[in-house]
């Protein structure tokens, strides 16, 4: 099956040998955030959703946010996404 993110990773060729297999985040028009490779929720509210990824925690700030999907590997957040921060 075609995977858009894998295609990007292959085309980048990765000259510096970076580790690109930790997680993927796609922000679609600030209305939907798609995450692959999460390791568990840390915080959940309508204004702030944070979750663990490999070697980091991602914080998503916004308004009226809900977790549209939560599975073993993926997260789909909908709402008005204002900021995505990795700490």
């Amino acid at each position: 099956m075609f995977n858009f993110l894998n295609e990007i990773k292959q085309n980048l060729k990765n000259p510096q040998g970076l580790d690109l297999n930790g997680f993927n985040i796609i922000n679609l028009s600030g209305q939907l955030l798609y995450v692959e490779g999460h390791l568990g929720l840390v915080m959940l509210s309508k204004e702030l959703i944070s979750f663990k990824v490999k070697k980091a925690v991602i914080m998503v700030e916004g308004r009226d946010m809900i977790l549209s999907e939560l599975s073993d590997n993926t997260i789909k957040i909908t709402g008005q996404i204002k900021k995505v921060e990795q700490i």
Partner: protein
Amino acid sequence: MRLKNVTKFHICGLNQEKLLSDLCKKFSLTEIERNSKSDTTFKCSFFEHKKVEKILRERNVKIESVSHEGLAFKAFQILGSYGLIAAALLFSLLYAIQFQFVLQYEVLGLDKLERSEIVSFVKSEFPASKSKIDTEAVETALLDNFDEISFASCIIKGQTLVINIKEKVLPDEMYGEFAPLVAKKDGRISEINLISGTLRVKVGDFVRAGDVLVEPFTIDTSGEQKKVEARAEILAEVYNEGCADHYETYIDVKRTGRKIEQNEITLFGLSIYSFKEDLNFQMYEVEEEEIDLSKNLFLPFKMKKSTFFELEQHTIVSDFEDVKDEFVAKAKEKALKNCENYDLMKEEFFTLRHLAGVTIVNFCIITEEEIGGYETK
């Protein structure tokens, strides 16, 4: 109606992030919405909701509400409803079928008649179907077949056939077996107390065992004979005798102690071995015993063992006066054996009869006892 089969949970509790992280490892969760710090709603597949609910309960999470939606849920709901409807219909049908039959019989007003007698009669004569039972016919049949019934009424109440019976009032002596009262022993009638029936004896009569004492009927003023139970207390003097014979001279035969054994082994009745000592006794008696030598039936070897005991005889002469008390006691013992169930021992005596070389002791015990009884068939 939404077609997707989902279940929505509304839960309350702390540390819900950890709970959701754990749940999402096993189930796919959707539309997770945090309403307040301790209040969250989320959806999961309808087919997985029981497993999710089980985990929530194991973790003591308070479930505020659970709601389902989707095509499968509706189908289950409808099927469940139809199942109930079908069960109700089936139950109604079975109930309607069995309601057509009488299942219980209640018999009221019985005193002397047996309930089982009435019920078995009705069961055998009338069908169990309520529509086929004619209560008037039951009443008539009961009146016709039971002389003791003066009135009968029947109704069907639910599935019970209630039979109300009024028995005829008959004197007690008209119940029971109409057999004559007969003498159980020989004796002389000393007292009569007639309860019911017709007397055949009077005080002072001598009767023998088996003689009729009271007939099982009475004759009324119109000369008509009516059956009644023969009942009376009839006391009689019964002569219980015992005798012992004394011989002045008699021959006493005793074993000397000497014996001879003879053995014989047989097969199918044919002698195949025998061991016999010479028998030189003038008088003897024999005891024989047959023993199976093998336990199987193929070769039934048997041993016949005969033991011969030598006898000798002595002539004994005794004077009656020397042993009189002993013989009187013997005769009394025999007379006492005949005394059974007596009410009063009135007198006892003995007589002696001297014949040629023989003295016969007759001991007689006169008892007063109830001698009336019924012949056993």
